[in-house]
C-alpha cells in the first residue's frame, strides 16, 4: 500500500473571538483512506501528543447528510466534482502534496471552532417558507394528482440539495441563492407546492437577504462546486418566481 507524506495547513481558531491562523502539520496517509480518515489519523496523533485535535464536522460519511464542510486547496469539498469531503479519497492526492484546509467562509456562517461553522441561517430560511403547509392526516391519496415524470425528476434534482453550504463558500459574493432556489424550485415544480409558491418565494428571499448573504452575480461557482450538482437553472426559476410573485400578483410577502 502506497504511503504518502503530506503537509497540511489547517485553519485553527479556538472560538468566535479568536483571530485564527493557519497551522502546519505533517501527516502520513495512504491512498485508500478517505479525506476525513486522514484527518482522523492526524487527530489521533494530536491526541497522543496531548494536543487539541482539529475540530471538524462530519457524520454520515456517505455524502448525504451535508454535515461535512471544509475548503480544501481553495475548493469547497476539494478538487473532485460532485463529491462531498467525506467521499473524497486520498488517491486523488500525491505524496509530498501540501493541502490547505479552511472553513467555509461567509459573514452568515460564523466560525465556531477551527473548521466548524454555524449554518443555522439555512434553517431560518427554510423556516421562512420552505415547506408545504400540510398537517399529518390531511393528505389525499398519493396517486390522486399525477405528476409528469420529467417534472417530478426535475423537482428531485432540486430537492437533492444536502444543505451543506458549499455554494455559499464557493461564491465570491457568499450568496446563498443556489440553496434557496433549490428549495423554491423543488416545491414550485410540484402541484402540491404550487399553492403557496407566491408567498413562499417572497418570504424565503426576504429571509435570505436578512441573513446577510451576498447577491448572485451568476458566477456559477456554486454549481461548479455543488456536491450534488444542483443547477443554476434553479436560480433563474427563483428569479422568475420572485418577479412574478412581487410584481405580477397581489400576494404581499
Amino acid at each position, binding site marked *: 500500500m502506497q504511503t504518502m507524506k503530506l503537509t497540511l495547513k489547517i485553519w485553527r481558531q479556538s472560538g468566535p473571538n479568536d483571530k485564527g491562523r493557519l497551522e502546519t502539520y505533517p501527516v502520513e496517509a495512504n491512498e485508500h483512506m478517505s479525506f476525513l480518515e486522514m484527518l482522523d489519523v492526524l487527530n489521533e496523533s494530536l491526541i497522543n501528543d496531548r494536543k487539541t485535535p482539529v475540530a471538524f464536522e462530519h457524520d454520515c460519511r456517505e455524502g448525504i447528510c451535508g454535515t461535512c464542510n471544509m475548503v480544501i486547496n481553495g475548493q469547497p469539498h476539494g478538487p473532485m466534482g460532485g463529491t462531498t469531503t467525506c467521499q473524497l479519497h486520498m488517491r486523488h492526492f500525491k505524496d509530498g502534496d501540501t493541502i490547505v484546509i479552511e472553513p467555509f*467562509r461567509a459573514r452568515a456562517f460564523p466560525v465556531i471552532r477551527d473548521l466548524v461553522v454555524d449554518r443555522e441561517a439555512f434553517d431560518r430560511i427554510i423556516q421562512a417558507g420552505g415547506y408545504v403547509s400540510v398537517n399529518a392526516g390531511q393528505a389525499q391519496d398519493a396517486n390522486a394528482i399525477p405528476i409528469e415524470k420529467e417534472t417530478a425528476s426535475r423537482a428531485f434534482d432540486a430537492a437533492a440539495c444536502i444543505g451543506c453550504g458549499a455554494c455559499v463558500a464557493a461564491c465570491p459574493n457568499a450568496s446563498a441563492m443556489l440553496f434557496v432556489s433549490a428549495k423554491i424550485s423543488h416545491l414550485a415544480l410540484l402541484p402540491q407546492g404550487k399553492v403557496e409558491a407566491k408567498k413562499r418565494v417572497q418570504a424565503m428571499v426576504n429571509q435570505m*437577504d436578512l441573513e*446577510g448573504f*451576498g*447577491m448572485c*452575480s*451568476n458566477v456559477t461557482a456554486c454549481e461548479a462546486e455543488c456536491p450534488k450538482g444542483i443547477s443554476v437553472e434553479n436560480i*433563474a426559476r427563483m428569479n422568475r*418566481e*420572485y418577479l412574478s410573485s412581487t410584481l405580477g400578483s397581489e400576494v404581499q410577502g
Partner: protein
Amino acid sequence: MNWFTNFLTSSIGRKLIMSLTGLFLILFLVVHLIGNLQLLYSDEGEKFNLYALFMTTFTPIKIISYGLYAFIVIHAVQGWILWRKNVAARGPQGYAVKVTRATGTNARAASNMGWLGTIIFVFLVIHLYQFWLQMKMGALESKMYDGVAAADLYTVVKATYMNTGFVVFYVVSMVVIGFHLWHGFQSSFQTLGLNHRKYTPLIKIIGKVYSVVIPALFALIPLYMYFKNAGL
C-alpha cells in the same frame, strides 16, 4: 408603495435593475457602433458629423438619451452598491487559497465584474469629456453640409486617434468591455429568469459573439484611423 421599495432593495430586485439597465446599454452599444462606423468613410467626416447632429437634435432620440444617461448612472451606482454588499457578505477573513471555477461563464470575468465596471466607468468619464461634453458645450467648430450646420466632431475624433496613448487606452478599454459583456450578456437573461434548456445555449452563443464582435469593431475604428492618418 412599501412593497415596491422592498422589491427594489431586495437582492433579486437589485439584480433585476442591473440586468435591465445592462440590457439597455447592450442595445445602445449597437446604435453607438452604427454611428461610429461612419468614421470609416473617407469623406472627411461628413456622414459622421451629420449622424452626430441627428443624434443630438432629433427629439425622440434626445428623450432616449436622457434615459441612457440615467441608466448608466443607475447601472454604475447599483453595481457599486452590490459590490460593497457582496464584499461585506464574504466577511473580513478571506481564503488563503481560493479557486473560483464556473460552469457557464468565464469565472475570472464573472467574479471581477466590479473591477471591470470600474475601469469602464473611468473610460466613460474620459470618453464623455473628450467628445460628448465638447459637443454639448458648443466648443466645436461648425461645418456646413448642403446648407445644414453641423458641429465638426470628426476633427476632434481624428485628432484624438492620432495620439498613440489614446488609441491604446481605447483598445484596452474595449477589451475590458468585451470581458464585461462576455459575462454580462447571458447573465442578464439568467437574472430575468430567462433560462431554458432549449434556448439558453443560443443566448450564450449570441452573447459570446456579441461580446467579441462589438468591442472588436469599436476598437477597429481608432486603430484604422490611427494607421490611416499615419499613412500606413
